[in-house]
């Protein structure tokens, strides 16, 4: 084997350090969740390595709190947000990609105005309006509210994806006899697949741990982040770890399933300019 160059070794050390920094909190989360409390939360000097394994924390939390309802509520909202973001974002980004790039990015920047305002200042009047519309305390209502933040981001990523497709492909499809809908969904959408999946993941994950909108709009049927917050404030730390794990697993699953469609350049395409 060839000896590694010093620059290579420095790179590996840096990557390793970064990995540790990012993974350490997740490690602690799992440690607390699957160890008996007297090794972790009740210990004066809690050990950093597992000493014993137990499922009791989890089973206790799952029995004494209703976890299924918030989980379903969160899933429902997250998928709604992701699909609405694609349903509106794909036509919007396609339209913008046919404009001169300068103009398209100008309009996209305008879309971010709702993001510039503090979330609390928008959510209160909207929540008041949603009460009269019957959208208060509903998954659809929260999903629509979250689109305020998600949709501009999704459009931004999708715009980059559509702009990277040569115009001639679209012209060719038109000349070959495809109408506008068939051109968009038969040739352009498959080519923008990586960007679309990136937009889907980003929208889904934003909604999954969104808190400010959720706590105000869904007080009676809350989502997981709100339930976790309630438990932390009540001091139920062991139950909280159980919730946190339940909350992490879908994210990991979704990322693992979808990451093979993601390539670095697709995200970069969305983030240029």
């Amino acid at each position: 084997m060839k000896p590694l160059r010093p620059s290579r070794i420095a790179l590996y050390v840096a990557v390793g350090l970064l990995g540790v920094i990012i993974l350490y909190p997740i490690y602690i989360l799992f440690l607390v969740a699957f160890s008996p409390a007297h090794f972790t939360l009740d210990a004066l000097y809690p050990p950093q390595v597992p000493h014993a394994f137990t499922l009791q924390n989890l089973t206790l939390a799952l029995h004494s709190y209703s976890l299924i309802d918030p989980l379903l509520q969160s899933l429902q909202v997250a998928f709604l947000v992701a699909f609405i973001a694609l349903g509106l974002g794909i036509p919007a980004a396609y339209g913008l990609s046919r404009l001169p790039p300068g103009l398209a990015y100008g309009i996209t920047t305008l879309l971010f105005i709702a993001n510039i305002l503090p979330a609390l200042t928008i959510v209160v009047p909207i929540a008041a309006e949603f009460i009269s519309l019957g959208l208060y305390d509903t998954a659809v209502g929260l999903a629509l509210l979250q689109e305020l933040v998600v949709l501009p981001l999704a459009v931004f990523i999708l715009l980059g994806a559509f702009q990277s497709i040569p115009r001639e492909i679209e012209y060719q499809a038109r000349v070959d006899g495809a109408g506008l809908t068939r051109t968009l969904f038969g040739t352009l959408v498959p080519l923008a697949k990586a960007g679309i999946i990136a937009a889907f993941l980003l929208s889904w994950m934003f909604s999954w741990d969104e808190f400010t909108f959720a706590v105000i709009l869904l007080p009676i049927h809350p989502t997981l982040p709100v339930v976790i917050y309630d438990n932390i404030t009540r001091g139920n730390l062991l139950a909280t770890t159980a919730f946190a794990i339940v909350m992490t697993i879908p994210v990991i699953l979704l990322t693992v399933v979808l990451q093979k469609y993601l390539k670095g350049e697709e995200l970069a395409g969305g983030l240029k300019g």
Partner: protein
Amino acid sequence: MTAQLELRGITKHYGKRVVAEDVQLSLRAGEFFVILGPSGEGKSTLLRMVAGIETPDAGSIFIDGREVTHLPPNKRNVSMVFQNYALYPNMNVYRNIAFPLKMQFFPREEIDEKIRAIAKTLGITDILQSPVNRISGGQQQRVALARAIVRSPSVFLLDEPLSNLDARVRFTARAELKKIQQELGQTFFYVTHDQKEAEALSDRTGVLHQGRLEQVSPFEVLYNEPETRWVGDFVGDVPMNYLPDPEGGPGEEIGFRPDWVELDSAGPLSASVELAENMGEANYLVCVTPEGKKIILRSVVRHGPGETVRFRIARAQRYGSDGRRKPSPT
């Protein structure tokens, strides 16, 4: 015979840039028509207006006698090959060629039959199942061509389809293209900046300069009787030579090609050689006349710089002060 494609007064401006100015053109059925012109002077735009990708500011387009000026591309019954071939990257070769047939709702067996036939003609049978990014440039060009000819449109539009090929492949692809056009007997509307392609392929060539059709004629007429000095300079390996017309008024000149000149030690005219360039079978001599005019002559004999050559002009065209050809050749 009826016109397969007719352009009437087509005008298109991008801001101040003129890409088409009152273009009149009529293609006969079965004709191989080439638009020749420098890059960036509106050739592709003209083609795209016929395809329906761009809309002219004024004028109308007729295909098979039917006005299509404002119809979308899928309602025009044309097919097109783009310079970069525009193959669908998410489909393999077979599905690329099948795409236009699927759009016309052909039954699956008929699509398969047509694709097998066209693949055999173009020699791409063994790559039908390959992804389009795994095949060579020459093969991609054939696939794009196959996709264009697999259905029978009224007009084929080809936008510099050979310019992305390397020189050797381009030569065979050019010959093949001509053969296919003759076998199909279909109307081809072809755009190029390469006059060798126009010469080899076209029945008639239209020279486009700054959005205007300078001349429409068979290629050898472009060479022998350029209607304007601009055409004379653009067509041919070297620009045309001009000397003051001894029988004409002020500003009137005669134009002649290097190969219309006979070098002759008893000739009436003389020039001194500034530069000699060997081009295979002949030498091009860049010369200066006693009046200080620069002209290019052709000689089978080598002449070095500084030598004086005598010559006679065997034939020439006369040009008025407006740069247009005058009818009577001297």
